[in-house]
């Protein structure tokens, strides 16, 4: 139905669905860009390499019907996969932070200071 935009629309949906965790529950992930990227980028890199090798080895392949056709790294890695490895770990962090906001701050030190007062 969404044709070649299917995969990218799915990734956009993941970003939109988790946005209230940041904006309403105050997950404070995007609000701490250095820590966010320091956690995210090594994961994107390592799992992106895994993906690249798996595609090269023929473990899985992508349908031209449902992907944009834009491919990186010598025509191997679909653009969508790069987006996936940026979006999905971010969604995981947002979920974890939302759980922390609901159950108490990391480290079991209680709910912590109000979000607006935090330095990081």
């Amino acid at each position: 139905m969404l044709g070649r935009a299917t995969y990218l629309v799915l990734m956009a949906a993941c970003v939109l669905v988790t946005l209230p965790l940041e904006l309403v529950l105050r997950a404070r992930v995007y609000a701490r860009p250095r820590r966010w990227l320091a956690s995210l980028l090594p994961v994107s890199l390592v799992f992106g390499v895994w993906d690249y090798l798996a595609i090269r080895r023929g473990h899985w392949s992508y349908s031209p019907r449902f992907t944009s056709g834009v491919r990186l790294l010598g025509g191997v890695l679909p653009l969508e996969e790069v987006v996936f490895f940026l979006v999905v770990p971010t969604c995981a962090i947002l979920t974890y932070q939302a759980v922390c906001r609901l159950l108490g701050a990391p480290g079991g030190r209680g709910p912590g200071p109000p979000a607006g007062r935090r330095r990081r």
Partner: protein
Amino acid sequence: MREYTLAAAAGVVLAVVLEAVVLRTGMFGDRRYWLALAVVGCFQLLVNGVLTCPPVVAYDPRRILGPRLACAPVEDLGFGFAMVTVTLSLWRWTGRRPR
């Protein structure tokens, strides 16, 4: 050879070792990690379904065991666990407070 099966199993082991031996944030003893993992796991089944049912992503049957969950090979659960676990372990590690 079932390379994806082996890679997914290795990914799970390496993710656990990274947290338990290298970063040691105490995450596996924290119920908030397990709760977040369960929530992410539910959404993974949904996203995996959209990706593997049409299929946007097709798997070589020679590289996997065979059993599937929401159209996706069970190996994807290992891949997802490894990725989420490494991500959250790093997130906790980068947010640790100096003693």
